[in-house]
């Protein structure tokens, strides 16, 4: 067990180092940030001062050595645009993104599980077919376009909801939360629904497949034979069993929610790290892009590590086959 965890840890560390090199080298192909940052009428002296100030006059390997040294101290460089530490810039935006992703995840479960259950129980009726066909539409909806349609309907035509931004927030433990403020809810609902729509379809399909399989199992037949009410069979026996894969998949999907938040945040001008990334790409703000990438790769490596360890605890075959190969 210990050997397995150590080997996985080593792999994660290797992945992070490889990503650091890759990210650093590739980021230098993006373009010249000096062109973007300086006003068009800047003279030669101002240019050179700016280049020196940002450390862009040193050879590439020196810049990389500098980068690694600072990385080990948790310093990912100063943003070219904001002038502040890029890692704390990203971390400052992290709560907004996490809040959005978590609310979307909960929405997906709350809407998806009942619909999938109904579709599975009534798979041969029109309602079952309707739910499953709708779920294909949900799968196919381009996320950003759905967001635009929502803005058009609820913000422009009906004027019920604000078209974007985070709105007022309340502070808890020094972190701002929209959920604590009633007005924050109003701002959160459209972005969260947009981010959730794809996962709703995913949950519907998982719940549908799970229910159809569970209906054929012996334990359901036995529960029926025992004379249990159908609401108890569905609510306790079937629901509990289909929840296992759904919870696993939703946990894994948290990472992809954070990635997809890039799109949603751009549409709704939500001040999360995805919006920051897109803005930074447009402004060639290298340190922020690097900091975002390193943070996300670390996050994914952590999620994958946890899942692997969890699986190996639950299912010993995973680590045994690993040891043999």
């Amino acid at each position, binding site marked *: 067990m210990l050997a397995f965890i150590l080997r996985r840890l080593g792999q994660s560390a290797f992945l992070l180092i490889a990503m650091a090199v890759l990210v650093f080298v590739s980021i230098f192909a993006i373009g010249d940030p000096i062109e973007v940052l300086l006003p068009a009428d800047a003279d030669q002296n101002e240019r050179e001062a700016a280049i020196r100030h940002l450390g862009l006059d040193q050879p590439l390997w020196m810049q990389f050595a500098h980068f690694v040294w600072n990385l080990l101290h948790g310093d990912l460089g100063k943003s070219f645009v904001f002038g502040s530490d890029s890692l704390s810039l990203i971390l400052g935006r992290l709560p907004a993104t996490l809040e959005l992703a978590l609310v979307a995840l909960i929405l997906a479960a709350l809407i998806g599980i009942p619909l999938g259950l109904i579709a599975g129980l009534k798979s041969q009726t029109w309602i079952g077919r309707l739910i499953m066909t709708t779920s294909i539409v949900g799968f*196919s*909806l381009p996320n950003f*376009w759905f967001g635009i349609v929502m*803005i*058009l309907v609820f913000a422009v035509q009906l004027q019920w909801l604000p078209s974007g931004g985070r709105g007022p927030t309340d502070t808890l433990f020094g972190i701002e939360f929209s959920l604590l403020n009633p007005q924050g809810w109003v701002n959160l609902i459209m972005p969260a629904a947009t981010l959730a729509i794809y996962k709703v379809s995913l949950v519907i399909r998982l719940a549908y497949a799970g229910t159809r399989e569970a209906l054929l199992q012996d334990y359901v037949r036995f529960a029926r034979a025992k004379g249990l009410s159908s609401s108890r069979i569905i609510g306790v026996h079937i629901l509990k069993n289909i929840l296992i894969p759904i919870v696993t998949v939703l946990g894994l999907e948290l990472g992809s929610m954070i*990635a*997809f938040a890039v799109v949603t945040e751009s549409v709704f001008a939500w001040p999360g790290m995805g919006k920051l990334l*897109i803005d930074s790409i447009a402004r060639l703000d290298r340190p922020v*892009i690097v900091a975002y990438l390193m943070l996300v790769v670390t996050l994914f490596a952590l999620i994958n590590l946890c899942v692997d360890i969890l699986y190996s605890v639950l299912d010993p075959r995973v680590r045994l086959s690993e040891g043999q190969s």
Partner: protein
Amino acid sequence: MSVSAASSTTRSAIKIETPLHMFWADFCANRIALIALAVVSVLALISVLSPWIAPQNPYDLTQISIFDNMLKPLQRSQEGKLFVLGSDEQGRDMLSAMMYGLKMSLFVAITATTAALCVGVSLGIIAAYFGGRVDAVLMRLVDLQLSFPAILIALILLAVLGKGVDKVIFALMLVQWAYYARTVRGNAMVERRREYIEAAQCLALPRHRIIFRHLLPNCLGPLIVVATVQVAHAISLEATLSFLGVGVPITEPSLGLLISNGYKYILSGKYWVSIYPGLLLLLTIVSINLVGDHLRDLLNPRLKA
């Protein structure tokens, strides 16, 4: 194809038909999928014929007039020209722009999927046939790539490479190949142990012949499903990347870029510049997914009674 033959032996025992006929009959049994297939065909036809059937060439500056800008749907210009779906800020006819955009979207997605299919299938089948270290290295690479969301990989790649149709195709190929590699490997691992492969090996057939003429055709079923779904996915991904400003260049817009362009005018209530391209995008993706979904049911032996 052995997969389709197995799937319909029970149903058409009376008539003697080729496997392809039986497969087609099974496919037609689902009306929704049949309609979806028709829609996909019509859309493909429209996109190919767009230079000839579009009311105007929206990228020929001599054909557009700035005075026609932001016309509402069904409004006529001063010269009496009808704009069925309205026009954008440069006076381009939206219907024509959408036809050209559809062509771009389909071209990028299909090219990228085909390229990814070739790379993924080759690597996957090689991994399955040779096994051992080759297999371990390739599959670890696949695992690694699939643990990151496609949109993130493509976004960063394009941020580094810059805009361009060829770059978008390359990025889409790079995020897709792993799906095919995994699918084909899973199948080939099973097929590899079958007697006909052993027989081919006993005949001392050359290795490439065994792999590509014997092993590969028997792994095609699931690949068709994955490829269909992936084309839809690629269209959606390209549109998203173009919306975020890292996709196709402004001179060769796809549907995603048209939507992105219309996004600026949403708050002033000029809905048609982004809603109509989006509807066309949605129709395309839904139709392809419906076809793929039905194909999956048909080719899945577990759902056969």
